[in-house]
């Protein structure tokens, strides 16, 4: 019984192992570790239906963002276009497959996995699929969540599109297309999705 009490009102800082007493927070506030300033927990702000809507929107933008050209280059009449994956392939074909692989992983695969993983978690929780199989899937997905969200680097890719535009506009004419728009939208939707998502809260839903 004493253990239950400790479970509910005490938390351990994951960075420095300090025992911290849990307190209720006003909405929008975050609790930091008093000793090392690591984020301990914040107010659960994770509405299942809101996240479902964001997930579906992100899924809609995912395909065009990856298959439509993100940049178009006009140089003395010849036109070149590229998608994210083609950029990764081009580097790989010159023998730098580590570079190609990391571009592919961080800009294409990880964002797609992130969205699909959050979508499946939400569906499992929303439709209360409580049998052993789905609980196991949910556990696995939650365990991999933090590594996937660290690998997904949409914001950096967006900035590098801008940098490339400035870089190349010296030589040639650069045009942004529908693909660039879809990619920016994908970035914005994913940003909001990650703001809304709270791993701690999702783990608690597994307990219920």
């Amino acid at each position: 019984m004493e253990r239950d009490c400790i479970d509910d009102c005490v938390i351990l800082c994951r960075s420095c192992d300090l025992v911290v007493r849990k307190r209720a927070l006003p909405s929008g506030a975050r609790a930091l570790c008093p000793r090392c300033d690591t984020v301990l927990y914040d107010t659960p702000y994770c509405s299942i239906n809101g996240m479902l809507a964001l997930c579906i929107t992100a899924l809609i933008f995912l395909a065009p963002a990856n298959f439509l050209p993100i940049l178009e280059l006009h140089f003395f009449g010849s036109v070149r276009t590229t998608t994210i994956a083609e950029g990764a392939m081009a580097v790989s074909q010159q023998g730098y497959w580590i570079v190609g692989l990391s571009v592919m992983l961080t800009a294409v695969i990880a964002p797609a996995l992130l969205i699909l993983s959050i979508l499946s978690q939400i569906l499992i929780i929303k439709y209360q699929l409580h049998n052993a199989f789905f609980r196991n899937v949910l556990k696995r997905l939650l365990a991999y969540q933090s590594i996937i969200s660290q690998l997904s680097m949409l914001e950096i890719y967006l900035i590098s599109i801008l940098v490339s535009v400035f870089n190349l506009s010296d030589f040639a004419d650069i045009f942004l297309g529908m693909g660039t728009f879809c990619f920016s939208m994908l970035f914005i939707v994913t940003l909001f999705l990650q703001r809304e998502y709270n791993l701690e809260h999702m783990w608690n839903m597994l307990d219920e």
Partner: protein
Amino acid sequence: MNNLNEKAQGKAMGLTACPSCNKLNEIKYLRCSRCDTLLLVRDTSSLQKSWALLITAAILLIPANIYPITMLTDRGRIRYDTIYTGITHLVQSDMFPIAIILFTASILVPLLKIVGLTIYLSAISFRLPISKKMLMVGFHIIEWIGRWSMLDLFVISITVALVNMGQLLDAKAAPAATAFALVILLTQMAAKVLDTRLLWDRLESKDDTN
């Protein structure tokens, strides 16, 4: 609950947080009661792993900076650019904001990351008397900003895919690209594998109020 004083370590109270889901568990259990992950009170081997990754990254930082990272063919003339000369070309063509972004992402961040992690790991290994709070703030900054080094690789992949018009104008990646990618990967892993709780245990004898 009575012994819950201000500066207690979870370990001293017989409690530990699950490495995967952060649930509170008693040390006597082998696996987390919520997600079945193996409980590790302290990952002592993580210090060695982190040192190994960091030293490899520091060695790779040299080829990443002295070898060319891109090869540009402009009307038959071939020009090799290292990370540094690429940035000086940007400065010469009056693109200061872009030059600053690229300088930060590809020179400053990797260097600071390696120096910062070296200080951090030495503080644990050799018990240096450095303020733990400052070290931890630095560590959080390193964790957050480290990803931004990928910027240069993304720019290279976009440029290489777009600029391929034979002798007229052609961009290719060059050997430093692989070394640079590995520097980013290894430093990120070095920060990721480290069990930061070791810092707060090891320096316990020293003054830890700041």
